[in-house]
């Protein structure tokens, strides 16, 4: 009964956040004649598709190449340096993409000059910014995969003089999957390209939704945010623009689906991973000083350079109180959105410990992969009606978007407690006559709560830094920091933009550290018991 009830609530929540927008998109894809015209690959469409794939695949390849030293340290590192890499590596990914790209643009201006808008240099700047922003992802995917490789196999390979060949073969799947994962995330990203008006599918999607047409010499995309979500309850125009935007997104969706499917297949087929941790490895396999030095160098590059540049570029002394006063409404809104989304993720995590959640995770992952822009457009079209103003005109619609995009993290944290390592605990409690609810309250939550809360905090962090959906939804009750920042991203050396960036980064860094600590606390007992079991 408890299990059914919790499954029902979970499905209701995920259905509301992910199911409805996905249904709206599916409906438009099926019924919209413009969608089919997108399959006629005209020169313009081919060009756009080629640009999008070329830029973002390059970013993914650079990110994966940069990540290798850090991945080695994550997979086979010991000691202080390894701990540092674990903690410091995600910093870039936790910075909002607009803050990150702004940091790199200012760095170029500091040491050299700003490339001309939309020039080859400008594209290279965007691709490199995107690559360094995404670097932590492949580092963790490959590093965790490396941890799962059988140490005996590696030792034997080492004796045969083929350590790297064998290890690379073992990691081929995770490396390929990392490239595709980065491509998927890069393809959705528009805030890196938009400030200098570079045309890729993600930026054109927003142009079409904002103005009804793709960018051109008479419809330049270079501008602060438009009011995509402005109140036009009865306007047929917004309906038409939304439909056109969905049609524009079709090549992107096809690309994301292809990358997602191939990536998942690669991970499943080629990965040596069959457990979270294959256990201790001999010292001879530990990451050497070259890998450790390179890993620290990569962290200095991807996190240090943009942050140091921002601090250096600020023309006035940093005054935390003044900055907080300046941005108080935006900070309150962003924090509230984050807290509410994090709480919803925590609820999902708790429900996932009780009920079935596989389908919910799949639905949530699909909305994550579809990207924030399409999600926001779907939510705008669903809720932009007078009877639903309590959702549309409040922070609720933004929280729904965040849960739709990141809820899977909470669900995954909850699902972790139904893995085989936890089953013994549940079985023992059941033998003692405990109901599922009693097992949850008396056995699972007392051990797993840090992990579940870590999932919630992680969703909170990602929600605070989310750009694509937030910009289109442009919440005003309360207002959030990201849309305000987006209107300044075009002006380099601009103090308020730098102050807001540093403020956001500081908030997010503190929360991310809390999430890492909680995650460590939550997984430690179960991993420790597994290690004890091996001994």
């Amino acid at each position: 009964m408890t299990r059914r009830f919790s499954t029902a609530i979970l499905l209701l929540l995920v259905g509301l956040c992910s199911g409805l927008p996905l249904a709206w998109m599916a409906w438009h894809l099926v019924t919209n004649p413009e969608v089919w015209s997108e399959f006629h690959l005209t020169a313009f469409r081919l060009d756009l598709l080629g640009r999008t794939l070329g830029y973002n695949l390059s970013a993914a390849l650079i990110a994966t190449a940069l990540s290798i030293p850090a991945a080695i340290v994550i997979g086979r590192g010991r000691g202080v340096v390894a701990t540092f890499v674990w903690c410091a590596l995600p910093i870039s990914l936790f910075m909002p993409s607009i803050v990150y790209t702004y940091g790199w643009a200012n760095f170029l201006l500091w040491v050299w000059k700003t490339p001309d808008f939309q020039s080859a240099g400008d594209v290279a700047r965007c691709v490199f910014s995107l690559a360094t922003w995404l670097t932590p992802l492949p580092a963790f995917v490959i590093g965790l995969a490396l941890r799962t490789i059988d140490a005996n196999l590696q030792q034997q390979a080492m004796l045969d003089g083929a350590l790297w060949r064998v290890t690379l073969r073992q990691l081929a799947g995770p490396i390929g999957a990392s490239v595709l994962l980065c491509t998927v995330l890069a393809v959705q990203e528009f805030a890196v390209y938009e400030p200098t008006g570079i045309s890729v599918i993600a930026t054109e999607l927003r142009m079409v939704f904002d103005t009804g047409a793709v960018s051109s010499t008479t419809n330049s995309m270079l501008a602060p945010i438009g009011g995509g979500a402005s109140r036009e309850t009865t306007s047929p125009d917004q309906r038409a623009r939304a439909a056109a935007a969905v049609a524009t997104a079709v090549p992107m969706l096809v690309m994301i689906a292809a990358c997602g499917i191939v990536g998942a297949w690669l991970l499943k087929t080629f990965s040596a991973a069959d457990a979270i941790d294959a256990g201790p490895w001999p010292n001879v396999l530990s990451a050497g000083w070259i890998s450790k030095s390179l890993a620290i160098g990569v962290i200095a590059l991807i996190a240090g350079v943009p942050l140091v540049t921002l601090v250096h570029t600020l023309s006035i002394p940093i005054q935390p109180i003044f900055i907080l006063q300046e941005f108080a409404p935006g900070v309150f809104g962003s924090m509230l959105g984050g807290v509410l989304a994090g709480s919803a993720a925590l609820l999902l995590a708790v429900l996932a410990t009780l009920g079935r959640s596989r389908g919910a995770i799949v639905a949530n992952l699909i909305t994550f992969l579809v990207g924030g822009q399409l999600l926001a457009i779907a939510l705008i079209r669903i809720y932009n009606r007078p009877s639903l103003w309590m959702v549309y005109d409040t922070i609720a619609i933004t929280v729904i978007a965040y849960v739709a995009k990141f809820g899977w993290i909470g669900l995954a944290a909850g699902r972790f407690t139904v893995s085989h390592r936890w089953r013994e605990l549940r079985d023992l409690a059941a033998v003692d006559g405990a109901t599922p609810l009693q097992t949850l309250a008396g056995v699972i939550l007392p051990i797993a709560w840090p992990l579940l809360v870590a999932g919630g905090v992680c969703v909170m962090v990602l929600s605070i830094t989310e750009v694509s959906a937030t910009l289109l939804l442009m919440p005003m009750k309360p207002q959030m920091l990201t849309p305000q920042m987006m209107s300044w991203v075009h002006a380099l050396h601009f103090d308020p933009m730098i102050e807001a960036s540093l403020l956001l980064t500081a908030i997010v860094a503190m929360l991310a550290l809390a999430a890492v600590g909680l995650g460590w606390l939550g997984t430690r007992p179960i991993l420790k018991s597994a290690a004890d079991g091996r001994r």
Partner: protein
Amino acid sequence: MNADNTMHWMSFPSAFICAYLRLVPLLLIAVAGCGRSEKPDEIWCETGVGPGKVVYPRGIAYDAKTDSFFIVDRTAQVQRLDKDGKPLAEWSMPDHLIGKPVGLSIGPDGNVYVPDTHYQRIIVYDPSGKEIRRWGKGGTGPGEFIYPTDIAFDEKGNVYVSEYGDHDRIQVFDMAGNYLRQFGSFGTGDGQFRRPQSMVITGDTMYVTDACNHRIIQFKLDGTWVRNIGQVGGSLGEFRFPYGLDIDAKGRLIVCEFGNNRVQLIDPQTGKGIATWGQPGREPGEMAYPWGVVVDKRGRVVAVDAGNNRLQVFEF
């Protein structure tokens, strides 16, 4: 993990998580739609490209002689609207790939002066949109600009151009665009700016919105600093990113605040706030990142509600 530890941990997390999750919906309800907004008299323009439509409008100017308004938006379209907000004419800026103007003004000659912000120049149009002349180029020397934001005129026909971009200042030109002098510099001190966004001149006094220092600065026309009005905050008499500025028939300052999403009425004598209009939101009477404001000869305030793609008309 032993049984004792389990029992020990049990009560805290379960109770905490349950209480927290119960609190969240209450918080959501508390925040949703709090506050009451005063409705505008009229709303002009709607989202889109074309006559009477705007996408993120930023600049506005009022021509009292012809009783018409000029606006410029993110599509780089300049539109002329009649006294009821109906479109009369429109034209496009010549270049807009790297950015759009953030303001525009009407000169004593009836022409439209547009600070072409990202192209570092001033372009002058006649009211029908025909370009008359342009001046300025990128740089920090006399007659050069980084990011020009607004243009104001004194009774002698001098042209004042404000600019930001690490070299914030106000330059003074004659009507032909010849450089005369300059005042102000980048900084937080008296007489210094961080993004002088809008200017208004009355008699021999100039008021400037010093947007990133969250204040209004009063100068004499020779550039002598007189005083600062306001400080950062959301209360009456305080500002967050004041962008737009105008003065009404009673000599009161009308300030449009990008960061507080409102228009504020200021008594220039005391420097105190008298009233505010608007709050964050999308409904009529609510605003999203307003950029500009003007007062017409009827005393109507027309605010550029940029994020909502519209103009809102009201009276204090």
